[in-house]
């Protein structure tokens, strides 16, 4: 179903072309008004999406090069489609239930919503099909068989795509637990990080080699891959039966879609009714006469004086870091803080949680000394992730000032709130730096102790690890001005600044960020003396980047209003 009228669009385009040809003035005006399309518009989504399964394909090639059997590759296909089904189910659910707000005001029948949803969900079918085609091509290539081996690939890819799509639709209707969805969403990141460790690579290789047959059962992609390998004689012939449940699942696709759409319709009806009630309850009325004749609302006598005297920044039960932070701020800083956050972020809780994760990681690292060698890779993976998560939530990498980048979108333009009121970006930078220093101060002993405690299982000097931890904390705090500026940059139009100054600013920012990355690496890996020099340079460059940006902001080098999609 099309939302527009193709015949009308075509006719209108023709008429416009004629009018343009007839009038040079109109031609000039059209040229003047032509909007440049961004790269995202120029390159179809399909092209971007095709890059996704490349990771899995590369992993399959790497596994084959490592000398693992073909079953290991089939297991990767299975895991990939499990991930696609679970993560994709959220997309399918959204597409089925989304109610385009513009249509609410138009004469659009409920049945048309259903047709529109069906079309949108069906529009996602090509994705698993394309994935399947790519992965089965790799599988066939690894087998290096004759034409028959290749001939089966398109058919298998088609069945696999439809089966996976059906599984995704079923999962959209009956969603798995949120924890499982979150874990699956994190899987690629965990995999990429885990593969950096030799122990994890060895463990993963062992699991893929020994438990490939179990892993192949995880998703329809795995069932079909197993059937394919059985057909080629790589696996025992009973595995060919794996195609049966996949075909059955593919056959259930229509029914799955109908079930999902029925459910989405019911939800949408509830939503529409709720929206209607809400509008009536709030007394929103465009009828001026009715507004005038309405009885005056008795004032509930709000205690404005109390609002005036109360602290502008609320905090349910601020922890000690938050209390120290608020005590450190002057009146003006508290006011600026109120503009960028409704309440001080719970840094104390984050620090405590970070300490818990780090402790868990350290304890697992110590336990690792008594764990059998075969399980060591898994242990390294788990405690590695615990340490990374602990550092990520504890270090002051994000300020938590949720409204720092507050903006309003209107008619395709975004305007930063910062632009509207008498405030300066340097005030935000100062606040962010103060918060970062304070958090870093509290994190420093935690990270240093965790680093020293890891020294024994890692067989390195406790002093070196404690120092490494301290460097990490320092770097995260020193990066604060630059991170604050990058956040502000997201709500300004600095990338399209006028004249050559725009190019200079962009060059300075990109150069600054690259220099920071290089200096961070030097800080962590260079010998102690050079590391100290790099630390000082890092702080200086971070401040330099912030200073350059603030100066350009103050002098009006760029606009504070930007196109929402650009």
């Amino acid at each position, binding site marked *: 179903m099309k939302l527009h009228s193709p015949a009308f669009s075509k006719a209108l385009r023709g008429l416009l072309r004629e009018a343009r040809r007839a009038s040079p003035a109109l031609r*000039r005006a059209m040229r*003047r008004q032509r909007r440049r399309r961004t790269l995202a518009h120029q390159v179809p989504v399909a092209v971007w999406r095709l890059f996704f399964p490349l990771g899995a394909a590369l992993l399959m090639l790497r596994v084959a090069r490592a000398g693992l059997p073909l079953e290991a590759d089939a297991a990767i296909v299975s895991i990939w489609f499990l991930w696609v089904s679970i993560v994709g189910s959220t997309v399918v659910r959204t597409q089925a239930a989304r109610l385009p707000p513009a249509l609410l005001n138009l004469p659009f029948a409920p049945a048309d919503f259903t047709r529109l949803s069906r079309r949108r969900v069906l529009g996602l079918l090509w994705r698993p099909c394309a994935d399947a085609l790519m992965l089965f091509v790799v599988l066939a290539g690894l087998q290096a068989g004759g034409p028959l081996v290749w001939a089966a690939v398109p058919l298998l890819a088609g069945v696999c795509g439809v089966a996976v799509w059906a599984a995704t639709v079923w999962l959209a209707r009956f969603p798995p637990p949120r924890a499982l969805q979150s874990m699956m969403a994190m899987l690629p990141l965990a995999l990429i990080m885990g593969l950096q460790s030799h122990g994890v690579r060895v463990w993963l290789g062992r699991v893929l080699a020994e438990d490939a047959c179990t892993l192949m059962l995880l998703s329809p992609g795995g069932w079909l891959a197993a059937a394919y390998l059985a057909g080629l004689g790589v696996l025992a012939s009973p595995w060919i039966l794996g195609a049966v449940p996949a075909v059955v699942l593919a056959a259930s696709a229509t029914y799955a879609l109908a079930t999902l759409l029925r459910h989405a319709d019911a939800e949408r009806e509830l939503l529409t009714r709720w929206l209607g009630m809400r509008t009536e309850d709030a007394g929103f009325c465009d009828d001026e006469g009715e507004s*005038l004749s309405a009885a005056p609302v008795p004032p509930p006598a709000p205690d404005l004086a109390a609002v005036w005297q109360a602290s502008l920044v609320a905090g349910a039960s601020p922890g000690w870091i938050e209390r120290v932070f608020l005590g450190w701020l002057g009146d003006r800083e508290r006011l600026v803080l109120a503009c960028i956050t409704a309440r001080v972020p719970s840094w104390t809780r984050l620090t405590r949680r970070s300490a818990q994760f780090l402790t868990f990681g350290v304890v697992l690292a110590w336990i690792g000394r008594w764990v059998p060698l075969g399980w060591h890779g898994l242990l390294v993976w788990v405690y590695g992730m615990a340490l990374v998560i602990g550092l990520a939530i504890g270090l002051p990498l994000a300020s938590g000032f949720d409204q720092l980048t507050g903006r309003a979108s209107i008619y395709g333009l975004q305007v930063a709130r910062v*632009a509207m009121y008498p405030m300066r970006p340097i005030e935000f930078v100062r606040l962010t730096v103060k918060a970062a220093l304070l958090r870093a101060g509290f994190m420093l002993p935690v990270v240093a102790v965790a680093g020293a405690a890891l020294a024994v299982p890692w067989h390195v000097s406790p002093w070196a690890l404690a120092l490494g931890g301290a460097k990490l904390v320092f770097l995260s705090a020193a990066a604060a001005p630059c991170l604050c500026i990058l956040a502000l940059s997201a709500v300004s139009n600095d990338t399209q600044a006028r004249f050559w100054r725009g190019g200079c600013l962009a060059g300075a920012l990109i150069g600054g960020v690259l220099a920071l990355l290089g200096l961070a690496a030097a800080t962590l890996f260079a010998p102690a003396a050079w590391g100290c020099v790099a630390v000082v340079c890092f702080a200086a460059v971070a401040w330099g980047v912030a200073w350059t940006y603030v100066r350009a902001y103050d002098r009006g080098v*760029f606009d504070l209003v930007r196109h929402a999609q650009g």
Partner: protein
Amino acid sequence: MSPGLETDVMQIELRQVSRRFRKMRALDQVSCEIAPGQLVAVLGLNGAGKTTLLRCLTGVVGPDRGQVLFDGRPLRRDNLAMRRRFFFLPDFPLLFWDRSVAHNLSIILRLYEKDDAGAPARAMEVLRELDLLALAGAPVGTLSRGQIHKTALAALMLVDPDLWLLDEPLSSGMDPLALSFFRRAAREATARGRTVIYSTQLLDVAERFADHIAVLHEGRLCAWTGLDALRAGSKDPANPLEELFRKLRETPA
């Protein structure tokens, strides 16, 4: 300056202000001087440059060429004292959505350093006039468009800056009582020496509610005149603006 004006008034000057957005000329060498105590209506067809002019006056958008001068000094974003002398009420106000109406007023008044002891009493009065008292405790994000606009208008009135800048306030979804209160307050403000500049498409309103008219066409300032002078030079004194716009449309670019 007419007698009775407050000493804290602002002289505004636009000197050859130009601004392009890629190939589109939004403002083209706009020059004018706005004396304190004036009520200025900025008119123009869609895309004529009205909003860009207001944004240039506030520093949200910078001119490619030319200068915006307040009391003879160029506007800089880091000059907070200068920025506190104007308040821009855009087409869609930027407020703190998760805070209440009262909290929003509190924050804005403090930013403008107008949170003196009398501020709460003044706020009560303005909220009552704008029929916002009952909503004073409601988060702004839950209000209708008109109510959000009224909240921002309340903030503007309480701040009472030297320069009021409003983008299409008369088509903002505010109810008739709020609009009439705004018109009254704007007249009183100009009597105190404040300058009020607003953009609008409503010609009949502009004819009645302005001392000075600025007409923009394709970025150029085509008319910058008092209403009496405009009427005097028009063939149709009853509808001088309509006649002007008809002429503009017929004039080739």
